[in-house]
């Protein structure tokens, strides 16, 4: 099979389309850091407003001499909100994200032993920051509540003249979480973070399939529209050589995208690392990066093999692009599922359906590489390659010169 001229021609053609190549490789390199920057700084561009209305403002001395006041809680809340970038007001003036109302009698009820103190959190449902603000408020209120509870327990112990260790009353059960791998061996904290990262990496595959699909569409439909295909089809080139030559060349685009995507992801994590002082890059092991690049290549080849038979029979760019979108959407579903679901543990009927798609194996390749499970990695790689080869076989089978020529443009 004389595949060389096809690859030679396609790569020459591709290498001279500098603008497309630059757009393909620069897209992830620019978009990923921009995404990181926007997630970090966009929050700063939208300062939240919290109102703390303290209508009580009294101090009460607990029996043991300790003074408890709603002002303490107000101070704790104010400090935490200011620290996290919120504007804190103590009177209702215009729009707010969250309001905390401390009613009269709050401190008195807080110090009694036959009732509880109540306060109200007013949440603006239209605000995107209200959820975060509520979380901060609840954390502070829980901490304050716990502190008051400890003081009350100590006071009661003194009254009863017994020695009390407050946690034995307030949280008599203590728990400890051990991290283990699927096989039961001890797992590290780094591996936990890497698992989360691997889900993100798998999801990022959604961005890399599009450029190659656009390229193969042009490579086939473009040849038809530029009237170069008909001559080519009468040459001694076999249909396998034409299909494989175009696929191999287009997958080169996939490799470029994969490398650019990996570089973009590294930049994506550098910026938050600088902003928050957490070195996320340390979790990017060479094996994880290598697995990601392999998964990118597999995903790209799978998309190309899926779209090839359709593109061959498509008369126009429009038809080819509509079908391309369908393929990309199917891939996106798998990549999206992998964010929330452990594909390996879902019910067999659903799992095997997903395993028909090579994308599922690409996702699994990234996930198993976290634990250095080379056997599973190779198994998923082999399954994906086998499925891709079947798809290529279908593309070659469907390659019919007459139908190609007469497909409507």
């Amino acid at each position, binding site marked *: 099979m*004389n595949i*060389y*001229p096809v690859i*030679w*021609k396609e790569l*020459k*053609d591709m290498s*001279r*389309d500098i603008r497309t190549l630059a757009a393909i490789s620069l897209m992830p390199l620019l978009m990923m850091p921009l995404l990181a920057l926007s997630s970090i700084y966009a929050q700063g561009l939208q300062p939240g407003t919290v109102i703390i209305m303290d209508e009580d403002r009294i101090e009460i001395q607990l029996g043991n001499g300790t003074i408890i006041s709603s002002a303490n809680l107000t101070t704790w809340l104010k400090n935490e909100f200011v620290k996290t970038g919120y504007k804190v007001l103590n009177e209702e003036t215009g729009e707010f994200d969250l309001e905390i109302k401390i009613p009269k009698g709050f401190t008195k009820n807080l110090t009694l032993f036959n009732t509880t103190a109540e306060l109200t959190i007013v949440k603006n449902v239209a605000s995107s920051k209200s959820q975060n603000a509520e979380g901060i408020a609840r954390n502070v209120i829980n901490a304050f509540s716990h502190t008051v509870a400890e003081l009350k327990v100590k006071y009661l112990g003194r009254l009863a003249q017994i020695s009390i260790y407050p946690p034995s009353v307030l949280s008599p059960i203590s728990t400890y979480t051990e991290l283990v791998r699927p096989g039961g061996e001890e797992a590290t904290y780094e591996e936990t973070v890497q698992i989360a990262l691997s889900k993100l990496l798998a999801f990022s595959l959604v961005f890399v399939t599009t450029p190659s699909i656009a390229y193969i569409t042009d490579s086939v439909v473009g040849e038809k529209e*530029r*009237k*170069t295909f*008909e*001559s080519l*089809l*009468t*040459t*001694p*080139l076999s249909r396998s050589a034409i299909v494989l030559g175009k696929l191999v060349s287009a997958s080169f685009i996939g490799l470029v995208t994969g490398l650019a995507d990996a570089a973009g992801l590294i930049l994506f994590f550098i910026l938050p690392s600088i902003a928050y002082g957490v070195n996320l890059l340390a979790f990017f092991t060479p094996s994880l990066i290598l697995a990601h690049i392999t998964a990118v290549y597999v995903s790209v080849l799978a998309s190309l093999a899926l779209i090839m038979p359709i593109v061959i029979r498509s008369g126009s760019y429009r038809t080819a692009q509509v079908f391309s979108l369908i393929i990309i959407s199917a891939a996106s579903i798998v990549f999206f599922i992998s964010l929330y679901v452990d594909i390996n543990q879902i019910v067999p009927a659903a799992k095997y359906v997903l395993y028909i798609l090579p994308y599922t194996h690409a996702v699994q390749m990234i996930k198993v590489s976290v634990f250095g499970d080379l056997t599973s990695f190779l198994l998923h790689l082999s399954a994906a390659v086998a499925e891709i080869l079947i798809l290529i076989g279908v593309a070659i089978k469907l390659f019919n*010169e*007459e139908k190609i*020529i*007469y497909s409507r443009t």
Partner: protein
Amino acid sequence: MRIEYAVYLDKVVKDFGKVRALDGLSLRVRPGTVFGLIGPNGAGKTTTLRIISTLVTPDSGEVYILGRKLPEEKDHVRPQITYLPEDAGIYHRLTGWENLLFYAMIYYGKTPEAEEVAKYGAQIASLPEKDLNRKASEYSKGMIRRIAIARTLMLRPQLAILDEPTSGLDIFSAYRVRKMIKGFVKETGSTIILSSHNMLEIEDLCDEVALIHKGKIVAEGMPQELLRRYGGRNLEEVFIALAGGGE
């Protein structure tokens, strides 16, 4: 009998849905001749040439090209023929030279022979070296056609199939293309089958002519013989007379 001809089509029928493109068409082309196919739009010229070039399979009838039966033996036929479709394009991001080399490599692989064949193509195209090394996107329509024809002829095929080789070209470019074809025939003695709307071109280039109308050959022979037989001053008048007044 069939293997004596470079092209042998017998009672060929081809339908596209409800439209009958070829209606029992029969055609014989002897080796070493330049054969012209004349007919109006939709007469079936391109379908006939596509069948001869192995791209399209007829619904019925017999097709032998260079003594090989189609479609069964198309893999044997393809290395010996070349086909220039109507309005054939070339690869715009490749240079003229690379376009020639690409086709040469399809037949000869990455070998010195391929380079030699491409050089011969450059000679046929007779474009200055400076132009040959420019990207084809910068070429005029005439230059594109010269490269397309050169890549068809440089392979010295036993049979070259040219669908409207001068269509859309100005008179200078068309003249150059005809000169290329004549020079090639003189040098190689290959068989050429070409279609055209231009009767003068057909008279100038072809040894034998077939008039095709509504998917059938309505007359066949040497141009002068047809003029004599049907009493026309030129092939245009002969064709109009045979096709029923241009209906």
